[in-house]
């Protein structure tokens, strides 16, 4: 899905010179990013590069150390808590650990935002849950509890809950982490369906190469405390930048200590 022209209404998320991190230590800084309606953008990078922290910042969970984040046309961190909550109702979030409530059934979990935030009649709520669960391939699991479901099923249920209010933008943190390739591919297919049929914009944090290649309209790669590369997956794969090339071609970075060093060190110690 190519986006040729952008109007301000098409831009759902804008980050301007954003720094994120913990306490005063920035993990990422100078991040400039725009996400437009109807695209799937993947945020990539190695472990600890700050992509999940960035996601926390753009979902209102952690204020950036510096810069501005505009979500759906509003400066998120300039809003008071109530206004921010209202804004975030137009978004959905699927967490890495699924974050389903263990004491509620799947249909109660998925219907929770509807029951808490709308005044829809109960039959409509149940029908919406049924439609969303069918969409993610979980028909018949309505009355099951999350701990009795597999990892992939729980992630699908989390996606159904994230999308139940028909958000304009859905954020997913490592949706395919810990899943086998077939289940992960099914989840990728569901994400593409959300984009193509419902027109939902999706931001996915991941480092699964297969997923990145399947779902990304654009990919943003973080590394070295900044955005290292941005563009289509084909562009990134063809990049001459060593770190970007290594990421896509699974080349392990050289580490200071390697297997076998220990024997050498012991040898030096004995002979010293």
């Amino acid at each position, binding site marked *: 899905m190519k986006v040729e022209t952008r109007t301000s209404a098409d831009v759902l998320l804008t980050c301007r010179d954003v720094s994120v991190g913990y306490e005063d230590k920035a993990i990422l800084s100078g991040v400039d990013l725009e996400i437009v309606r109807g695209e799937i953008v993947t945020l990539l990078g190695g472990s600890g590069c700050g992509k999940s922290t960035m996601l926390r910042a753009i979902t209102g969970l952690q204020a950036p150390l510096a810069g501005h984040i505009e979500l759906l046309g509003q400066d998120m961190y300039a809003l008071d808590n109530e206004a921010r909550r209202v804004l975030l109702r137009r978004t959905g979030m699927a967490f890495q650990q699924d974050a389903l409530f263990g*004491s509620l059934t799947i249909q109660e979990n998925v219907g929770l935002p509807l029951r808490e935030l709308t005044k829809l009649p109960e039959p409509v709520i149940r029908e919406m849950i049924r439609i969303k669960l069918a969409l993610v391939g979980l028909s018949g699991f309505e009355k099951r509890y999350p701990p009795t479901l597999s990892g992939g099923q729980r992630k699908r249920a989390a996606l159904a809950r994230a999308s139940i209010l028909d958000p304009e933008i859905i954020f997913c943190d490592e949706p395919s982490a810990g899943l086998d390739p077939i289940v992960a591919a099914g989840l990728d297919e569901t994400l593409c369906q959300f984009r193509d049929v419902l027109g939902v914009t999706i931001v996915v944090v991941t480092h699964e190469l297969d997923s990145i290649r399947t779902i990304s309209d654009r990919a943003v790669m973080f590394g070295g405390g900044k955005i290292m590369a941005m563009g289509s997956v084909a562009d990134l794969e063809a990049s001459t930048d060593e770190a970007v090339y290594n990421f896509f071609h699974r080349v392990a970075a050289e580490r200071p200590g390697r297997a076998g060093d220990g024997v050498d060190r012991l040898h030096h110690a004995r002979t010293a």
Partner: protein
Amino acid sequence: MPVAHTTFDRKTRTATVRVAGDVSLTTAKEFYGHMRGVARRRDVRSVVLDFEKAGRVDSSGLAVVSLAARMMERGGKAFDLVHLGETHRAALDLLPRDAVAVADETDHPGFVRRVGMSILDYQDAGAAFLALLADTGRQLLYVITRKKRLPVGALTDQIEKMGVDAVGIVGLLGLLLGTTLAFQGIVLLQRFGAGVFVADMIGISMVREFGPMMTAIILTGRTGAAIAAELGTMKVRDELDALTTMGVSPTRFLLLPRLLALSIVQPALSLMSMFLGIGGGMIIAALVLHLPPDLFWDRIVARITFGDFLHGMGKSLIFAWIIGFTGSHLGMRASANSTSVGAATTRTVVVSVFFIIVVDAVAATISTIGAHP
């Protein structure tokens, strides 16, 4: 502007519902009410849903269309959708075709079935508890005969957590209990000129009853609940299963150190509580009755027998086992969801306190009847 407007053709008995504007979360309730009204009309044979002027249809709109289709089917009415735009068709394609609608009613078992289910639950719990007792006995034997050993440092850790950290609260409450008993006793006994006997009363009460029982109740809330919460969380996180698959007995690794620590800590804290309670009474007697502390202590020593002391210490040991076994049993039986840990913790406190009081009452009855047959 209403989200839907209906016209009725009497000749063909067809109701045409014209959808206007977006059907979304804000208008779905009104749309549902409208469609339900149409479905209930007996003069309508067929319903046409016209999307010519419809805007965006979101999931809630889809749900209403899906429900309307079912309502019309149940009422024997034909149902057609006309003037669908491309986006409407794409949205309607999301409707599940073969998914079965979820039944509205939940499964409510009848009274007899509920009684039967509770009996089976208690039977299961009883069997599991006996199995736990037997396993604890077996593991204790292995440890005593040095075939196996406790995890390094586990016993001292538990003694520190359960005992040393509880010294302050148990001591303070013991002291306050002694002072309260003294005030009550002095008011009553002074009327008969028998104020000096407050020492006997406090000594017997603290050594035989209040020392062990108050300590047990504090430890139930503090330690029993902690054991249940800790083991329950471990169960939820599959840590108990991990031990089993490693070939390590969860009873020996987790339960035995806690139970042994409680068996040491509970009598020790009870003893401290007894002395501090007597000390509190001694202070109040000295201040209110001007009873010299040495006279107070002489009466205590003369009145309390070794049997009274054994009675109190024996009970405190039994209370320790009640707390330890209840917390472990209920914690290990927590099911794999977050509320079960809270439920196990609460039940541990309630069940432990219940059995502590039952055992106390039984012991008091037996010892009284035994002393005065």
